[in-house]
């Protein structure tokens, strides 16, 4: 709830003028709507009861004019309400997106892409709906309710005593409903999610389920979830089945009571007949405002939950911040140095990287090898400052990465991540991602280096061939080669390859490395790999094990000095290669 109020307070500010207009318009509308039964009463008391037809024809047009005014005001109100709610949605979306653009890898991992997308769409939508409702119905409900009560009291205070019984009864029904139904609704949603999850698992895991003869087990699991869901859905719906007729009955019983007691008041001359009819109209209005309020109660918790989730993103400070007074590197050679670098995740028992020191120079290819979880990717992530080292310093171009402007730092890096992600668009669009003004011949050259020229040339549209989001219309190997070409187009002084040769067959892998060797002869190249064959001919190999360097040198050197390296080689090339 607090989150919703805070979010609205800051994002409604630019629209305060519109909000005030909407509220005033709604106020006028409500008062006018409340005034209508009053005029009806007048028609009956002064016109019908006295047989004054002229009076009826005089008041009639007044009433009509009033409704026209109300209608116009309502439409103006909707106009501004839509401007405010949709504008607020746009502003929040923008704030979320811009904030995420500043996030470092740590924040991205914390939230996860799917969650960030849901927040930026569904959660914003919930808040939008809430604001739209607030600015159309929510203001009206209390005005109509309270106004109805005031007018009822004014019309006849004694008759209003009926309200003392009826309104608490209605509120009682609604409160009971809210207390029981809201938690049930929440558990209903959980159960729907649960059953959909079971379904999803049955589809994605169909092979495993059949292979392990677990079809019956899955059916039991499903039946349990299904029966559970059905039971809860029945309870919720039966609860609502009772609530609405109960509210209607209370309202109708109130009308009956009004007519009975009103009859007595009229008979004793304490109230004119027309007021009875006006009173019935007020009761209706009070009833509807209470119904409206009930309806709204449902939206508040939803919007509140969404607002909290949005606030979480907007208020998250990126863990990587730009330096206050950045240092511009003098020599952009792509040189990388690790000085006693330690890195650990918060709460992690042991550091992922432990006191690493090494230097990488222009023109040399350095390979990093090690088992799953030895810290290879983490090491690579420290270079572009996706994470900051928790101890020691990482230097790129002879300047601490934390002292450089992020864009300056990134400018000298050509990154090929483990997941060869491609964007929707043409092949050319993707290749130009790193260098917007690259010429076609530059693109073809990069494709050639990445061993992608042949398959791109074989496509009907060549460079203009469309790539689906994520590159799903290409094979894994093709994606990896395009991702490599994308980095090559940039001609960066520093290449970072994160295990991005894994989907290539051994021959392509070898040719690609050969071409790269020529292409990147003036650059610093870092290759993370699992395959020994990929790194066999690197100028230097760094062997990582459990976050520590357990060997640095060429293949030949390491074969004689590093036992872990020998084990890796033996595991891949066989004992004979080691001997």
């Amino acid at each position: 709830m607090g989150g919703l109020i805070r979010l609205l307070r800051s994002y409604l500010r630019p629209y305060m003028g519109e909000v005030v207009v909407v509220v005033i318009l709604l106020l006028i509308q409500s008062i006018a709507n409340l005034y209508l039964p009053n005029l009806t009463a007048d028609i009956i008391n002064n016109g019908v009861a006295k047989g004054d037809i002229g009076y009826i024809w005089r008041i009639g047009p007044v009433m009509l004019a009033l409704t026209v005014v109300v209608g116009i005001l309502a439409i103006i109100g909707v106009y501004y309400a839509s401007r405010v709610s949709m504008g607020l949605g746009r502003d929040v979306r923008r704030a979320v997106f811009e904030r995420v653009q500043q996030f470092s890898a740590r924040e991205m991992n914390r939230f996860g892409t799917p969650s960030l997308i849901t927040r930026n769409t569904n959660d914003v939508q919930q808040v939008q709906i809430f604001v739209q409702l607030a600015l159309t119905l929510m203001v009206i409900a209390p005005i109509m309710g309270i106004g109805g009560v005031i007018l009822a009291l004014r019309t006849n205070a004694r008759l209003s005593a009926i309200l003392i019984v009826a309104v608490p009864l209605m509120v009682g029904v609604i409160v009971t409903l809210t207390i029981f139904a809201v938690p049930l609704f929440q558990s209903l949603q959980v159960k729907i999610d649960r059953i959909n999850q079971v379904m999803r698992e049955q589809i994605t895991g169909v092979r495993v389920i059949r292979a392990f003869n677990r079809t019956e087990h899955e059916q039991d699991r499903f039946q349990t979830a299904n029966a559970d869901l059905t039971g809860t859905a029945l309870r919720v719906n039966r609860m609502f089945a009772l609530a609405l007729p109960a509210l209607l009955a209370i309202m109708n019983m109130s009308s009956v009571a009004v007519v009975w007691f009103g009859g007595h008041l009229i008979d004793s001359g304490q109230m004119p007949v027309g007021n009875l009819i006006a009173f019935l109209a007020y009761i209706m209005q009070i009833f509807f405002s209470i119904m409206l309020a009930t309806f709204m109660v449902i939206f508040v918790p939803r919007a509140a939950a969404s607002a909290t989730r949005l606030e979480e993103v907007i208020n998250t400070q990126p863990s990587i911040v730009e330096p206050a007074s950045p240092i511009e590197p003098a020599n952009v050679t792509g040189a990388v140095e690790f000085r006693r670098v330690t890195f650990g995740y918060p709460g992690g028992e042991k550091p992922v990287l432990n006191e690493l020191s090494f230097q990488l120079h222009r023109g040399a290819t350095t390979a990093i090898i090690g088992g799953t979880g030895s810290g290879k990717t983490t090491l690579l992530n420290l270079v572009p400052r996706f994470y900051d080292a928790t101890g020691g310093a990482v230097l790129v171009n002879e300047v601490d990465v934390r002292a450089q402007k992020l864009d300056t730092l990134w400018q000298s890096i050509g990154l090929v991540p483990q997941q060869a992600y491609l964007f929707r668009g043409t092949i050319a669009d993707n290749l130009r991602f790193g260098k917007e003004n690259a010429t076609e011949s530059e693109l073809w050259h990069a494709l050639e280096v990445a061993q992608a020229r042949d398959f791109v040339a074989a496509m009907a549209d060549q460079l203009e061939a469309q790539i689906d989001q994520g590159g799903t219309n290409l094979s894994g190997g093709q994606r990896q080669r395009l991702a490599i070409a994308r980095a090559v187009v940039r001609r960066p002084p520093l290449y970072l390859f994160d295990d991005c040769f894994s989907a290539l067959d051994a021959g392509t892998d070898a040719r690609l490395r050969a071409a790269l060797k020529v292409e990147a002869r003036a650059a610093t190249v870092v290759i993370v790999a699992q395959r020994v064959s990929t790194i066999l001919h690197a100028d230097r190999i760094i062997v990582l094990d459990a976050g520590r360097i357990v060997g640095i040198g060429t293949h030949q050197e390491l074969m004689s000095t590093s036992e872990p390296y020998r084990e890796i080689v033996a595991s891949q090339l066989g004992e004979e290669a080691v001997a």
Partner: protein
Amino acid sequence: MAQRGAPARPGGRGFGGPGMFGMGPPPAKTKDVGKTLRQLVARLRPERMAIVVSAVLALGSVAFSVIGPKIIGNAINVIFDGVLGKGLPAGLTKAQAVAQLRAHGQGQIADLIAGANVVPGHGIDFTVLGQILVLAALVYLLSAALQWLLAYIMAGVAQRTVFHLRGDVEAKMARLPLKYFDSHPHGDLLSRVTNDIDNISTTLQQGMTQILTSTLTIVGVLAVMVWISPLLAVVALITVPLSILVTVLVARRSQKQFAAQWARTGTLNGHVEQMHTGHALVQVFGRRQKAIDEFNQQNQALYEASFRAQFLSGIIQPAIAFLGNVNYVVIAALGGYLVTSGAITLGDVQAFIQYSRQFTMPITQLAGQLNLLQSGLASAERVFEFLDAEEEVRDRVVSSLPAEPQGQVALEHVAFRYEPEKPLITDFSLEAKPGSTIAIVGPTGAGKTTIVNLLMRFYEIDGGRISVDGVDTRDVSRDDVRRVFGMVLQDAWLFTGTIRDNIAYGKLGSTTDEIVAAAQAAHADHFIRTLPEGYDTVLNDDASNISAGQKQLLTIARAFLADRTVLILDEATSSVDTRTEVLIQQAMARLRQGRTSFVIAHRLSTIRNADTIVVVDQGRIVEQGSHTELLARHGFYDTLYQSQFTDPLAEAS
């Protein structure tokens, strides 16, 4: 996957459903409404008694609620008569009083009294009023009770129907051939079995009752209105076509804007998804500002479309309220006039005002329900299509496999094709002796994984024969065949649940010791113990809390625990580093003495120690032998193997 399903409905279930604020996606078109309706009706057949009872209840409840205002109107007439009667001198007859008034030139009041049931000098007749009001109270209470019963019964009808539908869909999944799952996008399947069923549930729950009662109410109110005063009824009805016209006109425009809003939401989401997924790339390649600029542009476009959609659809409500008010005013004024002229009574005017209010509500409701029904039918059609899909060929059980199979597997002249025109595997023969390890290597698309599909009988062979211990696998049940094989796939499938449960999936009722032993053999024990909850760590939806390699270790542990006679490993260790892989292989060798294994791997180091390496290309075996034999042959395998050691510089120069 998050983006594959239909967008979430902001309206939510139970509260007006989709499209309440016009935010839902445009309802999909149903291809064959008649057929879908027939199928839906057939599904409701078991509930026909309840539905008949509900219809009777609906009729009763609507009739009572329609008659209510009329009775209250009568009560008001009694009051009004009393007021008029009191104003006249006692002792006169009504006719005398009227004549007197006429004589005094008060013709209008005379008309009024002439049309009313007045006894001069007498006030309100409370005995009659009391009787009428008791009747009104009874009618209202009865109506509410019937309405409750109706909703109660219909909730059962809807929920039971959906319960069975869900169950049938789930049972259907077990009977579908693997081919169906492989040839349909998972996103679409998922959306059929989840979103579409939810949608049908909402339609049944809200739609059926409301459509029934709304229609009955409209008919009932109309009838009573005509009965009370045909003239006023005509006046009241004028606004109805006007309301419908306004709604249709505005809705047609706003629908277009909603479509635009959905299209732009899609574009914007696509952009957000791409920029977030490629976050690191966007940063390093210096595209942050560009990403923001594009976002702002699309965001603004979405804003404009959604503003227009919201505003246009927002007009409907005040426009109808306006027409309702006009109606009210006209009836109040004209009714007042008619009462003074004695044409109808005051109570009838009061009743009429209520009726005209009651009239517009079910009409707008009905319009909303029809929209809901339309989208529900589209969903129903998609679900029925799924239920009508062709099922797996029934097992022909004429034989059985031994309880303790030896693990001798033979493929004899096997032929298979996924598509009729494209033969994939032709004349494939291979024999695995009990206890041997067979490795299958070859380029992508050679048919390696297809062989797994055939061994497991996920697909049926088109020619030849596959046998286990000499028994043709087509002569026994699929379950029997699969009991022989343990399988680990590259795509490590884990379900939401604890690590313990995921490993135990391989063997029902396994003990903790067995689970831990399997995890140790798969070299998963160590990393499991570093997790915060150890074996009780819950894997989330897509098991993103552990790495791909770790997932593979868990599936290997699962297969170890299952301890089947023949083990199939299809790229099972592709994400596991080679050193760990060697350790797993050693553990496997110890655990699986005398067991048969099939190993498919891209990485040659994985299969080097196999007894027989089968090199497959284009669905045929091109080479076969041990690692050393194949190297000596200097063929396909040798080329593949040597390319690992090529010096890139040597080759480039």
